[in-house]
């Protein structure tokens, strides 16, 4: 199959019926494998990894904090991609997938913020610090809230999809801008604990040998969170498609009867 044909085959899933049928078929795999990965990763991390010599047992929070933070950002990127697809190719499934993903992103951001605050309390001596990374996540949280609120506020589904897509594009630019602004504004509490690079996280305060102990369960949790995100988004997109259909059928009923 040529690349063009493959690409065309991919667009087939933009058909709501085809999407529903396929997602129904693959969803069980994602649910089971994501739960398996998360359970194994968390049990491994919680029960079978040693305490860090500096951070004590709090290092175990990493197995939730880092995957949630990663998914909070990746979810926005996914919404950006699907918004672009909607604006360019006008596939309804794409717009609905962005809508379905946003609440998942909110929860991921909340988990990252909550675990960060609880972790920060003993480590930095405060629940909240205006550290650049924390601040960026708070701003990301505001973007998510605005995005969801705009979806909820607009009656007409196509107008809502268009407006939220534009908001997502503009918001992405401003989110990146805010990231740099916040970095400039406050250089940060702690050095080197870059959450984005797993190697830096696990190697920040520990010796390289020890960091591998934390790395594998963390990797498993990250994979689990990615799979869970996919399962949730597939399921919630299906719900949105059905909700749209109910709305259309009811409207037709009103016209006919």
């Amino acid at each position, binding site marked *: 199959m040529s690349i063009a044909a493959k690409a065309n085959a991919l667009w087939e899933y933009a058909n709501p019926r085809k999407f529903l049928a396929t997602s129904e078929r693959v969803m069980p795999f994602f649910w089971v494998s994501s739960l398996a990965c998360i359970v194994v990763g968390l049990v491994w991390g919680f029960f079978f990894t040693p305490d860090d010599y500096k951070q004590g047992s709090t290092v175990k929070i990493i197995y939730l904090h880092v995957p949630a933070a990663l998914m909070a950002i990746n979810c926005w990127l996914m919404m950006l991609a699907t918004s672009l697809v909607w604006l360019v190719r006008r596939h309804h499934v794409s717009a609905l997938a962005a809508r379905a993903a946003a609440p998942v992103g909110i929860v991921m951001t*909340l988990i990252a913020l909550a675990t960060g605050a609880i972790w920060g309390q003993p480590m930095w001596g405060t629940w909240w610090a205006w550290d650049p990374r924390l601040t960026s996540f708070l701003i990301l949280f505001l973007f998510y809230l605005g995005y969801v609120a705009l979806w909820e506020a607009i009656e007409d589904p196509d107008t809502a999809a268009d407006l939220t897509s534009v908001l997502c594009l503009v918001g992405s630019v401003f989110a990146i801008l805010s990231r740099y602004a916040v970095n400039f504004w406050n250089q940060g509490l702690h050095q080197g604990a870059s959450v984005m690079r797993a190697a830096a996280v696990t190697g920040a305060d520990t010796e390289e040998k020890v960091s591998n102990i934390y790395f594998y369960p963390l990797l498993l949790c990250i994979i689990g969170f990615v799979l869970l995100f996919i399962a949730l988004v597939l399921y919630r997109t299906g719900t949105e498609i059905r909700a749209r259909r109910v709305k259309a059928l009811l409207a037709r009923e009103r016209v006919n009867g």
Partner: protein
Amino acid sequence: MMPDLGKYADTVLWSYAASIGLLALLIVFSIARGRKIRAEMEKVEQRMTRNG
């Protein structure tokens, strides 16, 4: 069985509880809404086919 969490036991357990609680809420709400909408769609579709 329970590992010794030392003086940070509260911290670790609270963050696990908060995260797993939030995730569970998300999943429960998603599935509840999915069920509701699915039932609603079936009801409306049946009515449509009956009435032509």
